[in-house]
């Protein structure tokens, strides 16, 4: 099994055990990321409980179309990443499919960042940056936008790391440095990518949906 020996790393003697350890390790890391973004969600919830009407007014100012399209883009990137991961998993040698899906995932990630850039520009034009020239009268609305700018940029950084990881994978797989079948790095990158998507799934209703109905 030449693939396995190429992927075997220190200090493991048995490849299946190494894969299982890699998967377990990334899931433990995702648990820490859950608490990382969970603490931010708690900040949002506490501020919203203390200033409900200001948060609703601030939520109304966000551009829901950018938010919805971005959520769709990220969900689609999760689809292509899942197909790539499951393709690498299966014993049918689907090397070209996996590489194609990984590239698609990276491109969708980039699309998300570009759309985010446009949204940021529009927010700046509408003076939604907390500080002196803030647009909305309610002062607690500045808390909402303090949270908005912070959490979307932290999420964008995590997404960029994801894009870099996927890009590296595509580069390494194209140059045949690593085999595709049962490659633990694909599985680990996929799990990380899905987490970044889940974080955005939760951010969407918090940032874009408040204040639409009233």
């Amino acid at each position, binding site marked *: 099994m030449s693939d396995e020996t190429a992927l075997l790393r220190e200090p493991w003697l048995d490849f299946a055990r190494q894969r299982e350890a890699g998967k377990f390790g990334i899931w433990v890391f995702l648990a820490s990321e859950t608490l990382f973004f*969970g603490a931010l969600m708690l900040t949002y919830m506490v501020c919203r409980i203390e200033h409900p009407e200001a948060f609703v007014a601030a939520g109304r100012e966000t551009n829901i179309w950018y938010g919805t399209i971005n959520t769709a883009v990220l969900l689609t990137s999760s*689809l292509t990443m899942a197909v790539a991961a499951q393709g690498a998993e299966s014993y049918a040698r689907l090397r070209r499919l996996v590489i194609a899906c990984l590239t698609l995932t990276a491109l969708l990630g980039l699309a998300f960042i570009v759309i985010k850039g446009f949204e940021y520009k529009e927010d700046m034009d509408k003076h939604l940056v907390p500080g002196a020239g803030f647009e909305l009268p309610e002062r607690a609305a500045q808390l909402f936008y303090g949270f908005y700018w912070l959490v979307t940029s932290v999420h964008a950084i995590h997404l960029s790391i994801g894009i870099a990881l996927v890009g590296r994978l595509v580069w390494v797989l194209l140059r045949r440095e690593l085999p595709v079948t049962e490659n633990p790095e694909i599985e680990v990158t996929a799990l990380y990518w899905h987490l970044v998507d889940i974080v955005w799934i939760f951010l969407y209703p918090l940032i874009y949906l408040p204040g639409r109905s009233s």
Partner: protein
Amino acid sequence: MSEPANSGPTVRRLWTRNLVIWAALMALLLVSLVGAYIPMGRITTASGIVIAIAKSMLVVLLFMELAFAKPLIRLAAIAGLVFLSAMFALTLSDILARP
């Protein structure tokens, strides 16, 4: 190197399975979008969060294949949520009960 002949059905099964999940996710997204415009007061806010939970369950269980993972992996996944919910509960016991 073209794909080996017998991989056709595996690829088709792969795509169909995941496209169904993806379609469900998109549908939920639309529902949450539409739901946000229906003035139901607190239920509107709750609907957004509940649908987000549903979407993330789909991604975790099916895309990340937690449903078929070993119990150890499931334990790792749940561990974070246990302490997160404890953090929320105890912090809100302060915020909501302030005189």
